[in-house]
C-alpha cells in the first residue's frame, strides 16, 4: 500500500530522553489521528501517514546518521526534528543538500535555519524569549538587579542567558551575577552561594525542567530571597512533580498555556492526557503542531514531492496550532507570541501574553 512517510528525529535516549519520549508520543498521536480520518488527501486520493521515528541520542553525530537514514533509506517526504538546536544544526545541512523539508519543533537557536531553504521551525527563537523574560523581570517584577545561573555546556541555556543579560541591562537593570554549571551537575550550591552574596532581585534559571527543581531547592536551602523566573525549558509536568513547594510563585515564559482558551490546544491536551496519562510538555505540543504544519503543506502541495512540500511550507500563513498561530511568510522562523506562566498552588497558571 502506498503511504506517506515522515521522519522524526528525537532524543529517545541520552540526557534529554524525557523530551524524546513526549516527542514520540505527540508524533504517534498525530499519526493516529490523521490515519483515523483515512490519511492525507493528496490530489484525489487519501494516503495513510507513517512516521518513522529514530533515536538521535541528542548527539549531533547521531542526528546526521538519522537524517541520512530517514532521507535515503526510508525515503521520507519531510523530517520533523530534531529537538535540541545542536542536533538540528547537524541535520540541517543534510536535509538542505538532499532537498528535504525539515521542521524543528523546539530548536530555538537562530542559526538552525540561517541561510537554509528547506529548514523551518515551529517555535520562536532565543533572542525573542530572552527579551520577553528580561522585560517581564524589569517591568512586571520591578527588578533592579538580576542574577543568572545557566548550563554553559548547552547552547539553548547559554543563548537565552546572554540575551537576557543584554536586554535587562538595556532596560536599565543590572546583572550582578552570571554563573554557570555543566550538564549533569546536581550540586549548584557553590554558584548559588556566590549569587546569594550578590543579593539580586530576581534569579533567572533558563535551564531544563529536570535541573530546575534542584536549583530552586538548593537556593531555598541557602536562604536565597530573589524571585525566580525561567524559560520554556521549564515546561514539563515533571517540573512540579519534582519540586512544587519550592517553585511556588515562580514565573516562566512559554510557547503556550493550556489555560488560554483555544479549542485546538484544549483538545490536544485532553487527548494526550487520556492516552499517556500525563500532561504534554511544550516539546510535545510543538511536535504536534509541526506534524500538522507538514500535513497541511502536503495537502496543499497536492503531490508527494519534497520541493513542492517545501514551497507549500514556506507559504504557511496563520496556521492555528496548539502553541499559537504560525506564519512562515518570508522567514522560516515563525512570528509567535509568548506567554508568561506563574506557578500557583502547585499548578501552571496563565499570567500574561507577550506579543512580539
Amino acid at each position: 500500500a502506498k503511504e506517506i512517510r515522515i521522519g522524526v528525529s528525537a532524543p529517545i535516549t541520552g540526557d534529554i530522553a524525557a523530551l524524546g519520549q513526549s516527542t514520540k508520543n505527540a508524533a504517534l498521536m498525530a499519526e493516529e489521528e490523521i490515519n483515523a480520518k483515512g490519511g492525507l488527501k493528496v490530489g484525489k486520493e487519501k494516503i495513510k501517514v507513517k512516521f518513522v521515528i529514530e533515536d538521535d541520542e541528542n548527539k549531533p553525530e547521531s542526528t546526521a546518521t538519522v537524517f541520512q537514514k530517514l532521507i535515503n533509506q526510508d525515503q521520507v517526504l519531510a523530517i520533523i526534528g530534531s529537538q535540541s538546536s545542536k542536533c538540528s544544526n547537524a541535520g540541517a545541512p543534510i536535509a538542505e543538500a538532499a532537498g528535504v523539508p525539515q521542521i524543528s519543533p523546539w530548536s530555538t537557536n537562530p542559526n538552525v535555519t540561517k541561510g537554509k531553504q528547506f529548514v523551518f521551525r515551529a517555535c520562536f527563537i532565543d533572542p525573542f524569549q530572552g527579551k520577553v523574560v528580561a522585560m517581564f523581570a524589569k517591568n512586571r517584577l520591578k527588578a533592579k538587579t538580576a542574577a543568572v545561573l545557566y548550563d554553559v555546556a548547552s547552547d539553548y541555556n547559554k543563548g537565552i542567558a546572554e540575551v537576557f543579560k543584554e536586554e535587562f541591562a538595556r532596560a536599565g537593570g543590572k546583572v550582578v551575577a552570571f554563573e554557570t554549571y555543566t550538564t549533569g551537575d546536581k550540586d549548584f550550591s557553590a554558584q548559588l552561594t556566590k549569587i546569594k552574596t550578590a543579593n539580586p532581585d530576581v534569579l533567572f534559571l533558563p535551564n531544563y525542567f529536570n535541573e530546575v527543581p534542584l536549583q530552586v531547592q538548593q537556593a531555598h536551602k541557602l536562604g536565597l530571597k530573589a524571585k525566580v523566573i525561567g524559560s520554556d525549558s521549564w515546561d514539563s509536568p515533571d517540573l512540579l512533580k519534582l519540586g512544587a513547594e519550592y517553585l511556588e510563585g515562580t514565573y516562566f515564559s512559554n510557547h503556550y498555556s493550556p489555560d488560554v482558551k483555544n479549542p485546538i490546544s484544549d483538545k490536544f491536551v485532553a487527548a494526550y492526557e487520556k492516552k499517556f496519562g500525563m500532561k504534554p510538555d511544550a516539546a510535545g505540543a510543538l511536535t504536534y503542531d509541526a506534524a500538522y504544519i507538514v500535513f497541511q503543506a502536503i495537502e496543499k502541495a497536492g503531490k508527494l514531492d519534497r520541493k513542492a512540500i517545501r514551497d507549500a511550507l514556506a507559504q504557511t500563513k496563520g496556521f492555528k496550532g496548539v502553541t499559537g498561530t504560525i506564519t512562515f511568510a518570508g522567514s522560516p522562523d515563525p512570528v509567535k507570541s509568548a506567554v508568561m506562566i506563574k506557578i500557583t498552588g502547585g499548578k501552571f497558571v496563565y499570567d500574561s501574553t507577550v506579543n512580539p
Partner: protein
Amino acid sequence: MHTIQPEWQIMRDRLRLGWRGYAAAGVYAALVILVMLAARYQWSIGSVELANPYYLHNLTLIGINVILVASLNLVNGYLGEFAIGHAGFLAVGAYASSVVTLLFHQSFWVALPVGALAGAVVGYLIALPAFKTFGDYLAIVTLGFNMIIVNIIQNLEVIGGPRGWGGQPKMTSFWLVAVVAGLSLIILRNLVYSNYGRVWLAIRENEIAAEMMGVDVMRYKMIAFVIAAFFAGLAGALWAHYQQYIHPSSFTYLRTTDLLVMLYLGGMASLSGSVLGVTIMTVLLESLRGVLSQFNLAEWRMVISPLVLIVIMLTRPQGLMGNREFAFVPRREEVPRREPARG
C-alpha cells in the same frame, strides 16, 4: 652465513609487501571504486540502491572511525597504556581545521594538514606531563586534558562556544575518506612492523626490561601518543568538513567511550581488528536501528546493543582479533606452516 640461506629466503620475502599486500591494496581500491561507481550510476538490486547515500554516509563514518580507532590502538593496544582522551584530539583537529577554513578563509587542503598537526602539537604538550604517570592514573590525566579542551572550546565565543560551530564547506567525501583511511592504515601498519612497533610492544610487555634493552621508553611513548593524536586531528578535520557542524558535546568522554568499545571489541594490537571492530559496531547499531524502527521500538536499541557487546566480549575476551592480523595484512615473520628447514 651460507648454511642458513633457506630460512633467509623465507624471511626476506616477508619483509616486502609481497603479493598479499598488493592483493589487499588492490581489493581495497577495487571495492572503493565499485562503491563510487555504484553511487555515480545508481546501481541497484531490485529496489535496493547499492550505494544509497545512507550507506555511503556510514561507510564514510566507518572510515573516519577507523582512523581514530587504529591510531588509538597504537597507544592502548601496542603500547598497552590506557589513554581515554582521544576525543580531545579529535576536537582539536575539528576546530583547528575549521579555524583555517572559516576564520582565515583558506582552502580545505590547508586545513586538513593543519588539523592533523594541531592534534599532534596538543598531543605532544599533553604527553609531556601525562607520561609522568601510568596505568589508571594516566587514564585520568588524559581524560582530564580531554575535559579541559572541551571546557576551553565552550568558553571560546569566536569558535561558537557551547552553541557549536557550523558552516564548514563540505569538502570531505566518501572517496577522500577512503583514500585517507587507506593511507593511514598503511602508515600505521608500516610503523607497527618496524622498530617502533617492536619497541611499543616490548614496553607493553615489560617496561623495565625494555629499558634494559637500551630503549628510551619516554621517547617511544611520546612518539606513539603524538602519532595517535596526529591521526585523531586528521580525523577531526575530515569530520568537521563532512558534517559541516561541530559541537563541543561531541568530544567528551562519551565519544572516547565509543572509540574504546570499538577498539577493544576489535582487539588490542591488531589493525585489522580495529577495522573489524569499527565496522561491526557501526553495522550492529545501524541494523538495529533499521529493524527496530520498523516496529517503533527505537527506545530498545540502546538496551539491545550493549547486550550484544557483552555477549561478544564474553565469548571472545581478547576481542575479535586480539594480537592477530588477517593473513592478508602482510607481516614479517608470520608463522610459517612448516618448521624452517635446517640447511
